[in-house]
């Protein structure tokens, strides 16, 4: 998605210190996105968030709750306004929670949860390992975040074609990724 700089999976919303996947305590699985506000607005991200889940459904499990964590009063205001608009349009209560992130903490998940789709494509990972021998640098990579998104079914072929040269892949891997996204676009056309 244009304007997304970095992504990381993690845990938030609970009181337990230093949660892990196998000892999550009262935390919820969470995705954090760094974005360039000059290219994508928080409101646009909110639209995508509401469309990506069923806001009328509340999970009985804390681990899988749907939550909109807000980082500051501006985000809170935008989040509440968008929730209220959606509620009015749906004509039923939105059960997605809005929580202040400052009252909890975001804990980055274990490495094997980061860039999950990309991690399972060996040829692409070999190139990223060469680019980023340090795991933390790989997780922070914009290219890795964007390729992981394409592998997860996000983005379109024209979008990929516009930025393919900037993703740092070899010609062969770039062509492979392009073919993969083209095939998916043909299936969903």
């Amino acid at each position: 998605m244009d304007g997304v700089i970095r992504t990381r999976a993690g845990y938030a919303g609970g009181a337990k210190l230093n949660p892990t996947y196998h000892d999550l305590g009262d935390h919820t699985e969470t995705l954090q996105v760094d974005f360039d506000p000059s290219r994508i607005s928080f409101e646009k991200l909110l639209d995508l968030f509401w469309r990506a889940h069923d806001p009328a459904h509340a999970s009985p499990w804390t681990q899988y709750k749907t939550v909109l964590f807000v980082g500051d009063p501006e985000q809170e205001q935008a989040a509440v306004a968008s929730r209220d608009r959606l509620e009015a349009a749906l004509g039923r209560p939105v059960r997605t929670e809005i929580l202040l992130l400052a009252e909890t903490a975001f804990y980055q998940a274990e490495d094997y949860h980061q860039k999950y789709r990309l991690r399972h494509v060996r040829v692409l990972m070999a190139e990223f390992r060469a680019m980023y021998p340090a795991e933390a640098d790989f997780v922070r990579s914009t290219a890795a975040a964007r390729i992981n998104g394409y592998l997860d079914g996000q983005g379109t072929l024209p979008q990929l074609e516009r930025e393919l040269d900037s993703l740092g892949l070899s010609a062969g891997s770039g062509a492979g990724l392009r073919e993969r996204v083209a095939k998916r676009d043909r299936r969903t056309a």
Partner: protein
Amino acid sequence: MNLWRSSAAHAESAPDLIHPLPPIDLAAPAQFETATFALG
């Protein structure tokens, strides 16, 4: 073409590797905002 890493931080961590970094990473803006979601 200079294949050496252009970032000093990365060069420090792996000076013997000659793979270039993705241009999109080198161009990442210093100013950004953060959004946090849990999607169930």
